[in-house]
């Protein structure tokens, strides 16, 4: 406890403080991807329009989770576990539901 008392006057050194530059870079990237997804929506890519739109959305979401939500810098393994399990169970929900609905007319 004595070690801790001396350290408690300062910011805990394991905390990540995002720099101004990196935050603005991520912000600009998010704006650029927004422009890109709007532009791509008006181009006929056949069945790939939805895939492109969702891929761009996932890239944006990943940037937000990793950099704005500091997951990239956390040393806490449990945070990563919670994030991965949330995505995993969402994937189960969507994929098993669609595995049902898209195959109901099969004989």
């Amino acid at each position: 406890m004595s070690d801790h008392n001396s350290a408690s006057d300062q910011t805990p050194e394991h905390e990540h403080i995002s720099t101004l530059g990196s935050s603005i870079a991520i912000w600009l990237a998010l704006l650029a991807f927004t422009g890109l997804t709007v532009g791509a929506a008006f181009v006929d890519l056949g069945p790939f329009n939805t895939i492109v739109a969702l891929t761009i959305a996932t890239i944006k979401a990943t940037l937000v989770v990793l950099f704005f939500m500091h997951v990239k810098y956390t040393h806490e393994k449990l945070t990563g576990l919670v994030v991965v399990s949330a995505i995993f169970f969402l994937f189960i929900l969507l994929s098993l539901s669609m595995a049902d609905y898209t195959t109901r007319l099969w004989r």
Partner: protein
Amino acid sequence: MPTSQVVADQHAHENPALLHHFETEAQQKNAASLGMWVFLAQEVMFFGGMFCAYLVYRYKYFADFGSASQQLDIRLGAINTVVLICSSLTVVLGVRAAQLGKRMALVFWLLATIVLGIVFLGIKADEYAEKFEKHHVPGASFSYHELLPGQEKLPPAERQYADPHHAEMYFSLYFAMTGMHALHMIIGVGLFGFLAYMAWRGKYTPQYYTPIENAGLYWHFVDIVWIYLFPLLYLIDRHR
């Protein structure tokens, strides 16, 4: 002397925000952070149910959804996306100000987030008002007579119209998803108002800013939900 008394005495010299059942500030912060992430995992499943419903009906009523989607104003949707991304940046800068102990900067960025949140909700309210005027709100007065995507290129006699019941399903999902998202925004704005007041009172320091960080996580999550809602609701079948 009981151990808890010893711990409590030791705590008395430390950060007053450190609760007695935690050993260290780092442990307390990790516990709060993990709790927030578990809450967000639950939110993923909550919104996931609606995304799943959307996916099933988009698959089933593919062209009708494309038709109904084109009744939305893509510019307003894009502006709202930009507003939310900017509000995520102000949250990041707010957390940074809290970490660096800049009290007034923290208050400023929290208020900036509230302003952007209210701008988003204002634009959303304007879009909702338009839906009421056009009778595109599901219910007794719903009426829909629009072409399927790409049909305007055909001669008038061959043009096909969207099934109003299928379009109504799109608008039901539109209102359910954007409505739940807007409710989260309203809660977020209230939360940030409270935090701005407490920050102005000087409650948050570089040793204790957990509420700022967790509210920030919440706000970023709400931003991520919109990142998916925007292409799924506004951008489908625009190329036809």
